[in-house]
């Protein structure tokens, strides 16, 4: 039995061996509760402080701006609901192609009196600038936009968008979970442009599941989502997940050290993959936009994405037909719908997201398998018609 090739790094990544190594002592030896005052507790507190500094350094933030949470979904919920709870209901703008953990909390707020605007994207997957300007003229109170889309990998140029949100008097948040570790992020610079908060997650960049952070400008007041004990400056109660936080910190440090090399490796693989795809009729979504170096989202006319993904799995390639969180949902991707892609083509969508362990040989093997599978499926479709 050979190990399948993992091409689904936007769903989650393996934990880097160096990260695992750093985490292990915090399970059974240095196991203290960071709130305890004895040596076990103080050692845990020091480990968290160090990780906080590592996370902050990776995005050019100050350690005091890092709020640890259990995951990216929690961080996005905390930001949106927490900020809304400190304001009188008004206009809230989020991207129509955003992740469900931004869209669903925003819809909850809409039920509590907030006026929700879902910002459409242009055909390339970027926020439609004209509509954005029109919404800013209506003075939103909170704006939240994905920095890089999990399905298409399209990178949003948030700096000018944040600047106009600031001019409109809005708090601006960006979910940077997919961007973090793949493209450089500088919170000081972003903050200077009007970005008040960023969401980061460990398990998308070589860290463990169970740790994430909200990078937060302290002027932005939040009500906590989870009360009880007052951890994380009162913004997030609950015993700190020391091992995962330590792992997150080390993953951040590795990401900085390796980012340039990783980006060029991924860029090379992606070019190889895309050239191959286009050569036999693959249509790549978001091609006109700047995208993450690891993500290729594509479809073949007349080939169902679910079916294709199933065939690829059996052939030993782990890819996704959409976001992992909504994989159970047979509806075509809301991201592609927001980009104006026809449902028929959208149903064919397959996402390959590359990572550090992937090689040229794997991409070449994948292309060969994909080509023969697509040929076969297209012939079957033609016969059925």
């Amino acid at each position: 039995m050979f190990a399948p090739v993992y091409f689904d790094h936007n769903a989650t990544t393996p934990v880097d061996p160096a990260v695992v190594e750093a985490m292990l002592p915090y399970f059974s030896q240095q196991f203290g509760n960071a709130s305890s005052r004895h040596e076990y507790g103080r050692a845990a507190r020091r480990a968290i402080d160090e990780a906080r500094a590592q996370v902050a350094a990776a995005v050019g933030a100050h350690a005091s701006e890092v709020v640890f949470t259990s995951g990216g979904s929690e961080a996005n919920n905390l930001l949106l609901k927490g900020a809304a709870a400190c304001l009188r209901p008004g206009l809230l703008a989020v991207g129509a192609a955003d992740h469900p953990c931004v869209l669903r909390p925003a819809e909850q707020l809409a039920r509590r009196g907030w006026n929700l605007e879902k910002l459409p994207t242009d055909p390339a997957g970027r926020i439609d600038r004209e509509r954005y300007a029109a919404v800013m003229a209506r003075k939103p109170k909170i704006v939240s936009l994905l920095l890089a889309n999990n399905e298409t990998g399209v990178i949003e140029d948030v700096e000018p968008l944040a600047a106009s949100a600031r001019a409109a008097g809005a708090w601006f948040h960006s979910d940077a979970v997919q961007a973090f570790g793949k493209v450089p992020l500088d919170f000081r610079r972003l903050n200077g442009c009007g970005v008040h908060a960023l969401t980061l997650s460990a398990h998308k960049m070589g860290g463990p599941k169970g740790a994430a952070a909200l990078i937060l400008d302290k002027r932005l007041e939040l009500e906590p989502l989870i009360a009880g004990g007052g951890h994380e400056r009162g913004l997030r109660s609950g015993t700190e997940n020391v091992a995962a936080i330590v792992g997150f910190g080390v993953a951040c440090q590795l990401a900085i050290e390796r980012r340039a090399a990783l980006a060029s490796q991924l860029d090379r693989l992606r070019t190889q993959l895309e050239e191959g795809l286009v050569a036999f009729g693959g249509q790549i979504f978001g091609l006109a936009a700047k995208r993450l170096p690891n993500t290729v989202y594509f479809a073949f006319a007349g080939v169902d994405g679910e079916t294709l993904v199933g065939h690829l799995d059996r052939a030993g390639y782990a890819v996704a037909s959409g976001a992992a969180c909504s994989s159970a949902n047979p509806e075509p991707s809301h991201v592609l719908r927001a980009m104006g892609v026809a449902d028929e083509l959208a149903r064919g969508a397959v996402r390959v997201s590359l990572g550090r362990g992937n090689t040229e040989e794997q991409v070449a093997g994948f292309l060969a398998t994909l080509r023969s599978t697509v040929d076969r499926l297209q012939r079957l479709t033609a016969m059925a018609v």
Partner: protein
Amino acid sequence: MLKLPIYLDYSATTPVDPRVAERMIPYLVEKFGNPASRSHSFGWEAEAAVEEAREEVAKLVHADPKEIVWTSGATESNNLALKGAAQFYSGKGRHLVTVKTEHKAVLDTCRELERQGFAVTYLDVQENGLLDLEAFSAALRPDTILASVMFVNNEIGVIQPIAEMGEICRSRGILLHVDAAQATGKVAIDLETLKVDLMSFSAHKTYGPKGVGALYVRRKPRVRLNAQMHGGGHERGFRSGTLPTHQIVGMGEAFRLARLEMGAENERIRMLRDRLLRGLSDIEEVYVNGDMEHRVPHNLNLSFAYVEGESLLMAIKDLAVSSGSACTSASLEPSYVLRALGRNDELAHSSIRFTLGRFTTEEEVDHAIRLLHDKISRLRELSPLWEMVQDGVDLNTVQWAAH
């Protein structure tokens, strides 16, 4: 060889049992898939591990796996249970009942619900830390929707009469939530017989990892909740967010071990705890906080009169113990739990919580006994109050000069 400091703070957190850690590690390295990934074996493998762990958690408390919702910990479980139920049933009533000795995760959540327009009754406990069932019954009103009472108190280890409270609540159509973070592996929990509707669990108090917990949500009769975290619709919509597979696997294994070993383990720990109590009971003016009968075998909470708590903690640095609950020990307020028992500030300040566990040894207990004897007599030698008491002065009659 004794490893110092000796860890006697198992109610703050426990080490991950090495057998648990061993089960977790593969899910960080080669079995790293996202359990929500539906299109490949990495995802299916992770999902299968999550479901196996769910069964183990359910088994320990005699629940259906479908009644177990993963969370990031007991604090989140308590928040989800209280806010989720209060918000869902707010049309039925807006009154909640809880107890003054609950964990902050419940008390702070209740305060938040008060700001949202709910009314909360905070019940007193008796001198032994136990809730009086008549007082509990009397506090329930026609508009009460939920009562929240912890199974085992984190500071004094007393076990509340949950079964009786369940009967009372069920007969009045009121939901009962129980914070069982300190109970798993220490007391038998049977949700087939207990009339409890919601129950919070934590992994890291039962030799599992930090960062994972669960909420039991009864299906028959069905309990509904408003989700507090929205997104991809994980956990049947109760709680969105990628499931941390390795932590969940750890919780499953920890609860499996608890189910298999708690009988023998608790007897061993009771023996050690009783040895500790016996060894310290020849010190004068030592008071046990909380009922000794309705109490988990792991806990001993003592007040050493005429010894200042902070100095005592400094003097016994070789013992990793707690002078209050870990979550509040950053403040120098006397423990609100001990205050609720009617202890005065001085006795509350001079209290130490010893919590023993799976890896505590007889040698460690004996060392702790010797150390405490030595340090307490030394501290009392320095205490003018102790000298006055030895001279037969009743301190309550002394007129202290203001300063």
